[in-house]
């Protein structure tokens, strides 16, 4: 029997891996992928509770989360292109000045 708790634990694992990746990896592209992992974990939670309570609100909000994730990916990847054009790097440790 798969309960909501199973989904919550899966979501927790996915979220933790995403946060870990954001902290550990220095490649901007990989960090953006880890953000996607975190948003997917949030979506799993939304869907699990939507199923648990028989409320469609969770699914509607998951749609919103997917929208925001798409917007975030578009902006993030635009920043990467600008960054590579400016500094020829995607390493976040080398991007530490506001100006220049």
């Amino acid at each position: 029997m798969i309960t909501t708790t199973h989904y919550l634990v899966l979501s927790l694992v996915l979220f933790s891996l995403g946060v870990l990746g954001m902290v550990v990896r220095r490649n901007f592209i990989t960090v953006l992928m880890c953000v996607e992992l975190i948003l997917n974990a949030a979506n799993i939670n939304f869907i699990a509770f939507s199923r648990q309570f028989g409320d469609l609100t969770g699914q509607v909000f998951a749609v919103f989360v997917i929208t925001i994730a798409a917007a975030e990916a578009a902006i993030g990847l635009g920043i990467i292109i600008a960054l590579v054009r400016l500094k020829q790097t995607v390493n976040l440790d080398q991007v530490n000045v506001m100006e220049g």
Partner: protein
Amino acid sequence: MDWIVAHFAAMVFYAFAGLTVAGALGVLVLRNPVHAALSLLATFLAVAALFVLQHAEFLAAVQVLIYAGGVMVLFLFVIMLVNVKTLPAEPQYLRTLAPVAALVALVLAVLIGLGSWTATRGAAAADALTTVDGQTLGNTEAVGWSLYRAYLLPFEVVSLVLLVAMIGAIVVGRKEKEGRA
């Protein structure tokens, strides 16, 4: 055979949950961004399968279309545009932040406990996710009704966010003209 039939849903869940976690681990571990992106694709598809298991068929389709179709193509496009091979290699190190990690683990454990406690209260009827105003519809139709009636304003706002993000991405990503700051 009976055992397989009885535990089929659980087996499917564990298979796709395993694929989800394996894909996420791949994103963390793989050095080549293309491999990491394909690993992320496996995670997206497995999550879509989990959505189907949770009777969110519309969202599963959206997940495949937007994530596996749109976002993933965007990632691969940028990876290939940037040509990561010519960039300097990423230094490999892991800071020792054990106390912080323990604190985060504790907070997450408390949250999962609260979530599980909430989840044990009152299960809903099986067909609740496809019922609108007492009528039984498909999941897509039910989500549509909810989205365009109860959540019309948030829907419009989020579409505005998407428009702003699109314009922002174009502005950030375009080439600067010569002679302009």
